[in-house]
């Protein structure tokens, strides 16, 4: 069992948890992810590592409630445990590897974090700061109430630019618009890392391609085992089929086929909706979902 030692609600529907998982905390690096399973009946849910404490043996995860499983997860409290917690999975971020440090130091790096994408961006920026590398961060969200980790990010970023789609805080607009403004104002970047919802990463890549900034994205497709066995997470990068769990999760954003990846992400939408309905309505559910037969 993997106990939850800290739980915080960061924003509407966004939660943070520190989970005790010593083996993972000992070996993980920024860019990698874990898979969590709540109990016997739960799904295996992949989540990017947001922070880690090697001494305490804990991993910080941040998640947004999007389906039945994440809603059940949000109900857990400090002292509760996850049945399963496995990782670190996937490859570490190339810019956060000791052996690439000399190369990384030469780069002018900008991160674009969208929504919960802030969580996986944070450990990378923190690692870079600890290794003497400056990086700018653009952190965007739909509205002020959904922002989180602003102070933490400010502490590790060279410059932090916060944006909201509705203008309720910081720059009024999306993160990529902020990037364009910075570049037009004379800022020079030669490496971009964009992490967030697929649609945001897609548009970030369209912009950075225009601005000629090589861009790395972190893909979060549907997964089952996360160790290269099931092939659910396959995506097309350039002309090749890649498995996000073992080849990724980070890829050259200018080569990723986002449209296909987004379609594949919809694959279990109806099934997820059904599970959500079952969870919300419990025993009171009697039909209407079109599957249970309750309305026949």
């Amino acid at each position, binding site marked *: 069992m993997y106990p939850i030692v800290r739980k915080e609600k960061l924003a509407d529907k966004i939660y943070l948890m520190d989970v005790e998982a010593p083996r993972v905390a000992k070996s993980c690096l920024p860019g990698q992810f874990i898979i969590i399973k709540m109990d016997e009946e739960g799904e295996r849910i992949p989540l990017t590592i947001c922070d880690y404490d090697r001494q305490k043996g804990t991993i910080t995860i941040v998640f947004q409630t999007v389906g039945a499983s994440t809603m059940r997860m949000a109900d857990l409290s400090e002292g509760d445990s996850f049945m399963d917690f*496995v990782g670190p999975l996937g490859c570490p971020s190339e810019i956060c590897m000791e052996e690439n440090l000399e190369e990384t130091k030469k780069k002018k790096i900008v991160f674009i974090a969208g929504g919960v994408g802030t969580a996986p961006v944070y450990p990378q920026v923190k690692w870079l700061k600890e290794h003497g590398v400056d990086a700018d961060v653009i952190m965007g969200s739909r509205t002020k109430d959904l922002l989180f980790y602003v102070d933490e990010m400010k502490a590790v970023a060279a410059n932090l630019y916060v944006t909201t789609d509705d203008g309720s805080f910081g720059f009024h607009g999306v993160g990529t618009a902020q990037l364009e403004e910075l570049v037009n104002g004379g800022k020079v970047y030669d490496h971009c890392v964009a992490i967030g919802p697929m649609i945001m990463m897609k548009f970030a890549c369209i912009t950075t391609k225009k601005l000629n900034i090589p861009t790395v994205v972190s893909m979060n497709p549907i997964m*089952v085992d996360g*160790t290269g*066995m099931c092939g659910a997470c396959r995506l*097309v990068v350039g002309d090749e089929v890649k498995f996000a769990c073992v080849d990724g999760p980070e890829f050259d954003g200018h080569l990723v086929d986002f449209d*296909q990846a987004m379609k594949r992400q919809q694959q279990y939408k109806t099934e997820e909706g059904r599970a959500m309905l079952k969870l919300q309505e419990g025993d009171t559910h009697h039909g209407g979902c079109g599957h249970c037969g309750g309305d026949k």
Partner: protein
Amino acid sequence: MDVMKKVPVTEQEPKVRATNFEEVCLGYTKEEAMEEAARCLNCKNAQCMKGCPVSIDIPAFIAEVKEGNFEAAYQIISKSSALPAVCGRVCPQESQCEGKCIRGIKGEAVSIGKLERFVADWARENGIKPAPAEKKNGHKVAVIGSGPSGLTCAGDLAKLGYDVTIFEALHEAGGVLCYGIPEFRLPKQKVVAKEIENVKSLGVKIETNVVIGKSVTIDELLEEEGFEAVFIGSGAGLPRFMGIPGEQANGVFSANEFLTRNNLMKAFKNEYDTPIREGSKVVVVGGGNVAMDAARTALRLGAEVHIVYRRSEAELPARAEEVHHAKEEGIIFDLLQNPTEILVDENGWVKGIKIIRMELGEPDASGRRSPVEVPGSEYEMEADTVIMSLGTSPNPLISSTTKGLDINRRKCIVAEEDTGKTSKEGVYAGGDAVTGAATVILAMGAGKNAAKAIDEYLQGK
């Protein structure tokens, strides 16, 4: 009774079992087992044993069954096999022990597999377990993967007194026995979990949720965690796809994904959160045991299922019994046919599959006649789900993170056939990680050989 024929075994009616996940074959009763055992000629130079990758003393255990001494029969089997209830169910007996049975020359071979299963089931129901080692020797060995090869290797080493820890990447022990082979062929709670309990009762520890190469490396196990030898039984890896247009569409799955969702993640049970695509018309591409498993699973979830295979029935790599069961249940076999394209609708979902007819040409390297396309024979079939069951290629997680571990051209770990010895001192390997996708029993044979070699290595140190 006709001594030339096997005592028939009771099975669930095809029509009934096509709608449930209960076991298909119900196994022999005591009386049936004893009657079948009486057909054994008790050959002095037993050919059947030569066909068994773990060399079970087959005539000896059958002689005990004949007399009704089931516990004695169990002890004979468990000297050689850690997983008899599994092997009795999933071994390809027709090409192994039963394939060599002298009875089989004129009539039907003795039903060795069904007898093994009976003995193992009887022992389980009567609470009989294998005997643990009397004395521990204090040497620590790590086993990577809790599938058939890992469990066998760990069990054998524990019997010799070793302190064995198995590291499993998934949340449940069993490897392919859990995620791959379906419930209706190999019950998880009743059979697999109990066999794993037996291995544990020998003193083997199992640590789940540890991905070797990621959570910890083999070098760290050897240098920091005090293990003196390692056996790699990590299994096969990444699923293969055909590389035809439309393969990334929604509704196209690897057999591994489809089976894992259903078997390990129990999508077929309502109380589990796992989603699965049930499909109404499913095409399974491939002709191996995994293809049969995927097809029969899709059928049970309510679909019309076609198996599309590019060669003819004679070349189907699946066990004869699986093909027979699949046909009985209503799986449609479209043989000598091969997909050329998956047709996709405007929302990115599978709507059909384009198929070309094949004919058999000259034998290829594997000795099987290679299929050749029949020009102009393409046609389209409607389908909403396609399951690719084309085998796997090795997983790089271990080979890429272990210093001095050689892999071959096909990226499989290089290991000596008789010992499992790899290029790295103290590290042994076996099963699919070495051979590429094969059978449960071959993996067990490799685990067994490696256990013996590891014992010799550590005793000689």
